[in-house]
């Protein structure tokens, strides 16, 4: 249904069985913006952003080139949903900042932002315990606190503008290299107007014991957020990065188009975890890709619950011998939502292995789509891929699609793909109701059971948050 709706307000169709409470999780605060580039996109917008951020000329040059690429690329609607055509690029604000420098202590963070975090459900104590909190408040980091211990290890953790200004020698080399500007229309858009995001460098052999964490939110009507993240894990290092999104609900569509690049050098391990819970009017069009060098490992754990339309296919280019890539994907599509997610595994060296596990849940008129690509070119030996996609359909009018694409050359590689579609079994629901659970509780329990094996791979706090988000989605789902 999502692709047919022309208004940004998602359909509030009362489902005969499930009446989803759409207002749960909606909140927003008034914020005064000091810098505002206005609506629409032109070279002037880029002049403005570059000036506001006091950027080096090469970055501005990079942005201007990207703008041309963005303008020249057609919408990918020959394979993607026509809903993309409803994005009005002229009505979007491409840069907003409250003019704040990243804060160093928790006390300095504005109270209303703290309230947002509270609503996210992270207990105060746990918040303080988190290794580093880089919470993106609109375009600029409103709060940034790298735990001292991490900084002592030589880890660099700052926002994109800061990092390019202060450590060009580290970040320039890989910036825009994993995902070139012209990769797709939205990576070009991001390259033109990016602001915020996290740039992280983990030195050789450093194992970061606590996950690094950042929360993003959109907080202005018609405001697109274009954060840019680049994580470089030097040889033998290990890092886990967590990104969570919640956003207030607005009446006109907003656009979120991030670019996330990961580089795992020889023997390094990167785990990137996302819980995406944008409001149901957000277009979330994200390009995420990592390069894994020899014996390196990149694992994407990607969970999509919110947004109107999400298009996101985290990928790993397996560039070095014995590199390993993994994508764990969970998607939940409710009324008016289309979760178009998946994974890409590009094998480019011998003995590389990849694993994709995708589970989706479609509720009401929700639509979830798995799109995948596995590529094993010529003359590679001993490459393996395993892909499993499972879809759960809750209501009679829920929808799911699966579109994998698998190319294998040569006889020395092995690929297997499996997908299944099912519904919650009536016997299960009946059994739980007999034991005194309401139908809604039973449904929620079943859905959580369906993703339990994947959810358990999340760090504790995310796993808990995920369970709560699913409860929230299924809450009051049975009238």
């Amino acid at each position, binding site marked *: 249904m999502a692709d047919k709706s022309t208004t940004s307000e998602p359909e509030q169709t009362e489902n005969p069985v499930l009446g989803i409470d759409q207002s749960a999780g909606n909140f927003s605060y008034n914020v005064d913006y000091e810098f505002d580039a206005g609506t629409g996109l032109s070279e002037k917008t880029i002049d403005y952003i570059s000036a506001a951020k006091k950027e080096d000329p090469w970055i501005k040059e990079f942005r201007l080139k990207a703008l041309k690429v963005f303008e020249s690329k057609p919408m990918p609607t020959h394979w993607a949903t026509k809903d993309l055509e409803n994005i009005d690029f002229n009505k979007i604000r491409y840069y907003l900042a409250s003019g704040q420098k990243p804060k160093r202590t928790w006390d300095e963070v504005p109270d209303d932002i703290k309230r947002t975090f509270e609503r996210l459900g992270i207990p105060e104590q746990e918040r303080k315990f988190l290794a580093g909190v880089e919470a993106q408040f609109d375009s600029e980091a409103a709060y940034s606190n790298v735990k001292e211990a991490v900084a002592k290890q030589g880890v660099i953790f700052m926002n994109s503008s800061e990092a390019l200004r202060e450590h060009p020698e580290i970040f320039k080399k890989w910036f825009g290299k994993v995902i070139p500007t012209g990769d797709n229309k939205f990576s070009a858009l991001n390259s033109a107007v990016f602001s915020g995001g996290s740039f992280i460098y983990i030195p050789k052999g450093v194992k970061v014991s606590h996950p690094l964490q950042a929360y993003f939110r959109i907080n202005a009507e018609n405001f697109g957020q274009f954060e840019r993240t680049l994580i470089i894990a030097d040889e033998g290092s290990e890092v886990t990065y967590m990104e969570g999104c919640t956003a207030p609900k607005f009446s006109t569509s907003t656009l979120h188009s991030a670019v996330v690049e990961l580089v795992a050098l020889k023997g390094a391990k990167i785990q990137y975890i996302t819980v995406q819970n944008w409001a149901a009017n957000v277009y979330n069009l994200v390009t995420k890709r990592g390069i894994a060098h020899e014996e390196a490992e990149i694992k994407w754990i990607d969970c999509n619950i919110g947004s109107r339309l999400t298009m996101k296919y985290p990928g790993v280019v397996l560039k070095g011998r014995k590199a390993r890539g993994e994508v764990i994907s969970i998607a939940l599509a409710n009324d008016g939502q289309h979760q178009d997610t998946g994974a890409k595994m590009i094998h480019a060296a011998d003995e590389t292995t990849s694993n994709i596990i995708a589970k989706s849940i479609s509720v009401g008129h929700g639509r979830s789509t798995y799109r995948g690509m596995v590529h094993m070119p010529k003359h590679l030996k001993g490459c393996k891929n395993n892909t499993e996609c499972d879809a759960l359909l809750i209501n009679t*009018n829920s929808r799911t699609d699966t579109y994998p*694409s698998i190319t*294998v*050359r040569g006889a020395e590689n092995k690929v297997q793909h499996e*997908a299944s579609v099912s519904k919650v079994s009536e016997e299960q629901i009946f059994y739980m109701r007999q034991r005194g659970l309401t139908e809604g509780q039973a449904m929620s329990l079943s859905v959580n059971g369906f993703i339990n094996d994947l959810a358990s791979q999340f760090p504790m706090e995310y796993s808990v948050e995920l369970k709560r988000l699913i409860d929230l989605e299924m809450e009051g789902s049975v009238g």
Partner: protein
Amino acid sequence: MSTLTEHSTPVGPFTLDAFNHALDAHKSLPTWWIARKKDAYAKFASLPYPTDTDESWRFSNRSTFKLDGFSASNTHPKALANKIELLGKPALTFVNNELVASNPLDQSLINSGVIVSTIKEALKSHPEVLKAHFMAQTQRLGSEKFASLHTAFIEDGAFIYIPKGVEIKQPITIVHSANGDLVSIFPHTLIVAEDNSQVSVIDYFVSDSKSKHFCCGANDLYAGHGSKITYVGLQNWSNHDLCLQMNSTVVRRDARAQSLNLHLGGHQARHESLSQLQAPGAFSEMLALTIASGEREFDQRTLQIHQAPNTKSDLLYKNVLQDKARTIFSGLIVVDQDAQKTDAYQSNRNLMLSDSAEANSLPGLEIQANDVRCTHGATTARIDPEELFYLQTRGIPEVKAHELLVFGFFEEVLNRLEDEDLHAALRSIIQSKFK
């Protein structure tokens, strides 16, 4: 945005003049048929050639899929390229779009109303059946242009009609053949199985091995309520041919259609297979075996559409890849909103026997009903070294063990055939390809 340079003549030799010339050559065609052909020609000429952004042609080598060079009219002798004997004499033999031989049906079948005839004949005797079923289903797999070309230029084909309740045990064989360099042919087989009837039909496609042909075929299968159609498409075109086959199957209440397509020949062979499950209890079984060798490309596109509740489809496509061959399997299961209790399966297995071969797999699902059982799978691998080792430990030489495992790979598909004679005949044809 000009892609015209690549295809300077999107109609190739099939110009309006050529079309009119072909029409003039056949006097006394019914006016509705002529009108349909003219519509089809207009559609063919106006539809664009498949482009880069055409998802239904993804991975296909479009630069070699060209009509240029072929001949629209053919003056070659209508001689059969090879002698065909497959479970008895063929009922009908077409060479270069013309019927050259036929063997009469058993008198008992004729008495029960069975018709095995030509489309030319049926235009006179059964226009209403042709109107209802000939190319009646919308092409949804990417070859709308070539389906129109087929309708515009078709001259003749097989017409098989089984009346209500009649069961035919012996398979009916139809031979479609091309002979002479650069000949274009448009083979067609139309099968209408009325309620509770049973029939099994073999389409045998063959061309002279020395020259190149353009084979643009189609078949329409209609399985009425409670009927059962077994269809085998045995494609053994010359290794130089450009071929395209468009299959459409409609399955009605409690009917069962089983089709097995064997792809052995052609330089570039595309096969589209559409199965529509239109009423409860309908079951469509779609099977295919491909032996891809040399530098050839086999492109298979399938669509299983479940339009009614309680329907079932089961697809198993197996490819063996040798040398520098390429295969593409693109399958889609569509379950409509009303089609609850659908049971759909789709499986693509690629066996890689060479380091230079390439297998592309696009197994897709589009599900809009929740109470369904839908699974698909795709695997690509070489022969399991452990299986090979096991056979060797039992004293079987490696070469023989390898051969046994390859033949075993095909057996899973061939075992689905109920007719044991047919199974044996197809097995020996496949095995001869490895000698």
